[in-house]
């Protein structure tokens, strides 16, 4: 064994798969060569938001030479019941949302599949659709739990009395629109049956989870489903579980006896793979004149679908970020004729902190108190205080004139804003295996997925240190469901969870006294852990300019300072932080699903109309971190960093827009037409 003088963890190692990604060699789910008889699937989606599919008529003249199968509930193979009703594709005549998969065409060519799918005659008995979320609905209900397993309601103290008695009060309603994850790689699967074994090249965040789900649906022993997920073109939550593409591809492959490739068209991602629910949030804050919070009341309304209850944890952060004697939070849901909302980067925290952190800004104004000072006086964590104070220094907050609409440069109003950030530090059970190879190198295996987080790279660093060898002697194998079980790449928990298992396996091998292989399962240790109250913290600062002529908003500076455990790889960590902040900018200024209730769907369902930030939108964006080693509760001392960048950054921008213009926008995104009448 070679002793290393420098530990790999903490070094800015370049991405291990980087050379493959910059040369086009990296293969994604729809890119595997699987034989000469590959067939292509194309989904026919529902053009109505509710109703019954009574028949599908195939024009025998359309693509007749190339169509291999047209599947719908009238002829599709029966699936066993699973946990997720949206995966029961082509199993019933019921239409629950616009865009639902109603039929699947399988053809010899992509062109034929698409044309034949477009030519299908879908006979539908439509029913009226109910798609509008509002606080005034009389059918709102309180879910039992909110994602993933939090109580729906909490209350300490007498919030109503405390609020009524508070000398300074803010009572505001904020809303956030439906948002779409929009990873650059659309959800895709290449499926084939090798005898009784189902092989899926699938783009997802959890290969073992997808394998287990498909095994259930197709009534196979779990070991007979093999999910390969070597590279994933982003997911941001939308690939956390199997999506209909995987089920449809497997079904089509079984029916046709061929490998089948099904890559969803971009437009289908706006209905078939999940989205972030719109929210409407009522916030009531009460404080003493010197800025001590006395009452916090946060009630959030979101939607779920007719198929499945997904309850986003919008108000959960409000339970712990600030201290007050009376705190109440709650969630209400409406069941709509819409697709089921799912995870999107920081579900709960991201929209919830728009409400809380903008309301805090309004409270600071009402108090004539600096918004950083208000937060510091009420922060529940000294880490948050550190981020706010040090961030203010580094951003250059102190010369700020607190009054709005004071700085002007030509046509531009200029302002700055701040918001806190936090995200839970989670760990989940995982298993890893370490092997000594005959070459003297080491192979470390775990069924994790790298969606661009840098998992492959950071696990290599972790393994190298645990084995006490240079990192170039470690080969990490991930992205394959047959490897030892890994938890989902979600909840910013991947590195903490997989790294723990990898550390355990590598240490076990190192300490084994000559074994060639060791396996480590972290389940028992993770279950003993008290994870409550463990969080990463941060502070976001924004400088914006708003064109007085047009209402256009530009973010001239976006700065984040984090206390997020030990940073294991500064190069990839920085990219994670700024990536989250960039998506936060999109949330503040650009992104929204525009609902037309008359047609029952979002009408901007492509990347020309659903605006994510472009190169030109990112003028200056910086992420730094404080030393927070030892806080993380795993062998690496890390906390999750994938999501905290989008928590609070939208509010910092909204608050900066107010400071620039004096205009308070309470319904995101901050579009120019909301500002223009007031400039």
């Amino acid at each position, binding site marked *: 064994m070679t002793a290393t003088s420098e530990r790999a963890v903490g070094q800015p190692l370049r991405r291990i798969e980087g050379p493959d990604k910059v040369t086009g060699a990296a293969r994604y789910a729809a890119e595997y060569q699987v034989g000469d008889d590959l067939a292509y699937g194309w989904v026919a989606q529902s053009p109505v938001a509710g109703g019954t599919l009574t028949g599908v008529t195939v024009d025998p003249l359309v693509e007749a030479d190339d169509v291999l199968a047209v599947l719908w509930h009238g002829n599709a193979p029966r699936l066993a019941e699973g946990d997720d009703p949206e995966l029961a594709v082509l199993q019933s005549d019921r239409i629950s949302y616009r865009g639902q998969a109603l039929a699947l065409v399988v053809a010899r060519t992509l062109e034929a599949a698409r044309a034949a799918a477009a030519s299908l005659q879908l006979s539908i008995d439509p029913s009226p659709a109910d798609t509008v979320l509002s606080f005034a609905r009389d059918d709102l209900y309180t879910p039992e739990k909110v994602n993933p397993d939090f109580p729906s309601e909490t209350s300490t103290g007498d919030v109503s009395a405390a609020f009524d008695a508070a000398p300074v009060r803010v009572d505001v309603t904020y809303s956030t629109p439906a948002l779409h994850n929009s990873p650059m790689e659309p959800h895709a699967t290449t499926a084939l049956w090798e005898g009784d074994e189902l092989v899926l090249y699938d783009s997802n965040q959890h290969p073992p989870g997808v394998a287990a789900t498909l095994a259930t649906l197709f009534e196979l022993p779990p070991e007979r489903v093999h999910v390969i997920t070597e590279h994933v073109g982003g997911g941001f939550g939308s690939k956390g579980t199997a999506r209909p593409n995987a089920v449809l591809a497997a079904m089509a492959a079984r029916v046709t006896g061929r490998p089948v490739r099904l890559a969803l068209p971009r437009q289908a991602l706006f209905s078939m793979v999940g989205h972030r629910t719109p929210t409407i949030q009522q916030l009531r804050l009460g404080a003493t004149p010197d800025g001590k919070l006395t009452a916090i009341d946060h009630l959030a309304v979101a939607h779920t679908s007719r198929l499945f209850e997904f309850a986003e944890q919008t108000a959960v952060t409000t339970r712990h970020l600030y201290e007050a004697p009376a705190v109440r939070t709650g969630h209400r849901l409406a069941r709509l004729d819409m697709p089921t909302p799912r995870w999107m980067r920081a579900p709960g925290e991201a929209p919830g902190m728009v409400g809380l952190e903008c309301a805090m800004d309004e409270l600071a104004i009402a108090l004539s108190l600096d918004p950083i000072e208000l937060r510091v006086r009420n922060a529940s964590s000294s880490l948050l205080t550190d981020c706010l104070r040090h961030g203010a220094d580094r951003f250059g907050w102190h010369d700020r004139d607190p009054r709005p609409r004071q700085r002007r440069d030509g046509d531009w109003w200029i302002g700055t804003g701040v918001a806190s950030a936090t995200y839970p530090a989670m760990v989940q059970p995982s298993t890893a295996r370490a092997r000594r190879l005959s070459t003297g190198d080491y192979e470390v295996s775990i069924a994790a997925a790298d969606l661009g987080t840098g998992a492959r790279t950071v696990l290599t660093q972790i393994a190298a240190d645990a084995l006490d060898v240079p990192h170039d002697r470690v080969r990490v194998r991930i992205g394959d469901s047959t490897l030892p079980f890994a938890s989902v790449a979600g909840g910013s928990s991947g590195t903490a969870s997989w790294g723990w298992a990898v550390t355990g396996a590598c240490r076990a091998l190192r300490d084994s006294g000559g074994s060639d292989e060791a396996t480590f399962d972290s389940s028992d240790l993770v279950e003993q852990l008290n994870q409550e109250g463990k969080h990463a913290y941060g502070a976001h600062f924004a400088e914006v300019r708003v064109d007085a002529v047009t209402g256009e908003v530009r973010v001239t500076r976006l700065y984040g300072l984090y206390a997020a455990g030990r940073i294991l790889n500064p190069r990839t960590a920085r990219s994670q932080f700024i990536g989250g902040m960039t998506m936060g900018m999109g949330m503040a200024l650009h992104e929204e699903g525009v609902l037309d209730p008359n047609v029952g769907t979002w009408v901007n369902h*492509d990347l020309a109309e659903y605006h994510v930030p472009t190169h030109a939108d990112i003028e200056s964006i910086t992420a730094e971190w404080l030393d927070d080693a030892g806080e993380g509760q795993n062998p690496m001392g890390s906390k999750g960093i994938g999501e905290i960048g989008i928590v609070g950054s939208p509010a910092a921008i909204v608050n900066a827009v107010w400071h620039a213009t004096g205009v308070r926008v309470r319904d995101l995104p901050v579009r120019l037409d909301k500002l223009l009448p007031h400039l």
Partner: protein
Amino acid sequence: MDLVVNGDRHTLEMDPRTTLLDALREHLGLTGAKKGCDHGQCGACTVLLEGRRVNSCLILAVTLDGASVTTVEGLAHPVQEKFLEHDGFQCGYCTPGQICSSVGMLDEALSDDDPPELSDAEIRERMSGNLCRCGAYPNIVRAIREVAAR
């Protein structure tokens, strides 16, 4: 029809509906060019056609008889190393398009009668046809800037 891809001549017979992108990915096994939107709205499919950057998803292959195409697989350009150095990607799915686009963009600037100064703002505007949902934009701009400065 004949198509020269990365210097190799291919004789193809295909559906007139087949786009250049699908020809590359499904017929020639060159999956470097990515399908992100299939409608010219993301830039992931960017390749160089006769040296100029284009969206291969909106070009029918049948119109390209005799043309010469360069994909990321055919590039050996300093910007690729700079992407590695500055972490100009995360998931990697937009990356081949970003790289082909930056190579085309640098050539456009060099061959301009009145060459522009490639400031960061100028690079950002010229690269805005390539979306990156992971938000690697500042790293990509840094990579391109260092090549442009040579």
